[in-house]
């Protein structure tokens, strides 16, 4: 019993150290969010808003915009995952033509287009509304998820895949039981990046009638009301931090044991 406990110790220690860096990650985000929320509450409760500012910061309006912001970020990220992960899997299959480097380069160039321009381009194509915004955001955030899916799958030790194949695992079994579980931490990291990009970019949705907290920020800019701009921007940032935190949790709990 004693020897068992002793020999189990190194592993426990190594798990602690990997948790250490992740815990830091999971602590810093809430601290930042808390500081920002405190600042926001201070501004909200202790500022004398004039009539225009009060109208811009009508709570029910803010709630609607925040909900839209969440909605846009969530569904655009979902679209990114649904597109980028399967494409990433496809281009890393051994008998698939080697197009992945070209694909990543092209998407990299695409990312050089300003998000503003991208939203307008999609507006010209698809018209106004939330759907257009979701497609535009998904296009913009495609690269980090695709790249991380490719990298995540390619960093899986070749000998592990080779062993699986040598034991008669089918290509599908190797993918679902070996490659994907081992690539999950990297893929989730990409999704986390994408979701934060999407929350930020959703602030531009108002440009084509997609709603979101961009409306508040825009009104504040137009009417020169700095406190309104701050409240809008701070809410966007809080939503982004919340998604980032959720991503951090996912990274921690989806990481396979033993890795």
């Amino acid at each position, binding site marked *: 019993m004693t020897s*068992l406990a002793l*020999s189990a110790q*190194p*592993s426990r220690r*190594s798990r602690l150290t990997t948790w250490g860096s992740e815990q830091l990650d999971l602590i810093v985000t809430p601290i930042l969010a808390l500081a920002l929320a405190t600042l926001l509450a201070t501004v909200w409760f202790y500022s004398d808003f004039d009539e225009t500012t009060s109208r811009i910061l009508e709570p029910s309006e803010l709630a609607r915009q925040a909900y839209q912001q969440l909605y846009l970020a969530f569904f655009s990220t979902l679209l990114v995952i649904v597109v980028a992960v399967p494409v990433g899997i496809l281009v890393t299959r051994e008998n698939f033509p080697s197009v992945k480097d070209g694909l990543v380069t092209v998407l990299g160039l695409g990312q050089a287009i300003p998000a503003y321009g991208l939203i307008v381009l999609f507006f010209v194509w698809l018209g106004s509304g939330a759907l257009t915004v979701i497609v535009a955001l998904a296009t913009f955030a495609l690269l980090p998820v695709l790249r991380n899916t490719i990298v995540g799958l390619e960093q899986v*030790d070749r*000998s*592990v*895949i*080779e*062993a*699986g*194949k*040598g*034991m*008669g*695992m*089918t290509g599908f*079994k190797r993918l679902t*039981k*070996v490659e994907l*579980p*081992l690539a999950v931490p990297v893929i989730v990291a990409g999704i986390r990046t994408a979701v934060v990009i999407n929350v930020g970019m959703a602030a531009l949705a108002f440009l084509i009638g997609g709603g979101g907290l961009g409306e508040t920020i825009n009104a504040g800019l137009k009417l020169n009301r700095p406190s309104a701009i701050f409240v809008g921007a701070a809410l966007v940032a809080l939503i982004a931090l919340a998604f980032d935190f959720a991503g951090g949790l996912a990274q921690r709990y989806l990481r*396979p*044991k*033993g*890795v």
Partner: protein
Amino acid sequence: MTSKGPEVSEPLIRLEHVTKQYHGVKEPAVRDLSMDVQPGEILVLVGPSGCGKSTTLRLINRMIEPTSGHIYYEGEDVTKVDPNALRRRIGYVIQQVGLFPHRTIAENVATVPKLLRWPKKRIKERVDELLELVSMDPSIYRDRYPNELSGGQAQRVGVARALGADPDVLLMDEPFGAIDPITRDRLQNEFLRLQSELRKTIVFVTHDIDEAVKMGDRIAILREGSEIAQLERPEVILTEPADEFVENFLGSGAVLKTLTLRRVRDIELAPMVTLRKPVHRGQALQAMSDAGVGTAVLLDDQEHPLRWIDERALNSSERAIESAGRPITVQVQPEDTLQDALSAMLTTSSGMAVVVDARGKYLGGCTIESLASLLLTAGNGSSSS
């Protein structure tokens, strides 16, 4: 001596005129190779790096498809069966082990049985049985992850995993190549012990001729293009290399390597002068001068060798003869290799080793002269070819 041993049977694996040509490479990796693997034998493929030995191995379980030729497994053309079904019937061990890092040791070992949809209870029993077999206590290691294992332990699990569904054939691609020499030696010995129970058919790839000699029932020495330079039992290869290539590949120590193949029981034991208590000085000296030797062995009542007694000890020692001379610390048994006997001899200044049976009873002696004459005949054999 012919290449076939006494028990010739239907080959389990047969390669017929197999060629593997890669795109954009001028020389084929494997050129027109034909080879049989007999059931229950360890066939070692050995050769310099890049000679195609690994490619040859991987052709058998269709990790690589041949360009032309046929490979038969149990009389069945492997290119006509589902490769995944085929691989589940053939154990495969690679140098990098390739354990699944996100699965426990038990889950790793259970891989093939699970693919074959064995019932849960049977899988669990099989896993414990296999872990016991490779000397890994299931109660300790079952639920651990591969990152908690040393290299040697990982390869034990690798072997257990390859034996998962009790395949008739094991393909081993430099399985002990990445393991430190001491652990490698232990794993080789354990594996040979395992094989003496399991009698699997094994194709074993290595670049290390010493490992080949130790592990192989037969050795195929391959040159460029996986061409067989010689396929023979190790003692034949060592004493009668087919050509200069084989001779060079064996290196200068080939004759010495034969020592690891021969057992002490294979040579004639030299009679030694034995003394029993109570020792009479005069008689002892007389017996030694009659035999023309300078050293005698003192035995106890149960015939266990105790001490080396030489003339000087008999002549000059004022102490009791029972405590004269030097104690015998190293003994060899008939099952030991001649290499063991040689190292035992080198620890005594007399150039002799005492041979005892399993219960430690004196059988006879082994002298450096008897080894030398054996090596000389072996040496003549090699230079005459």
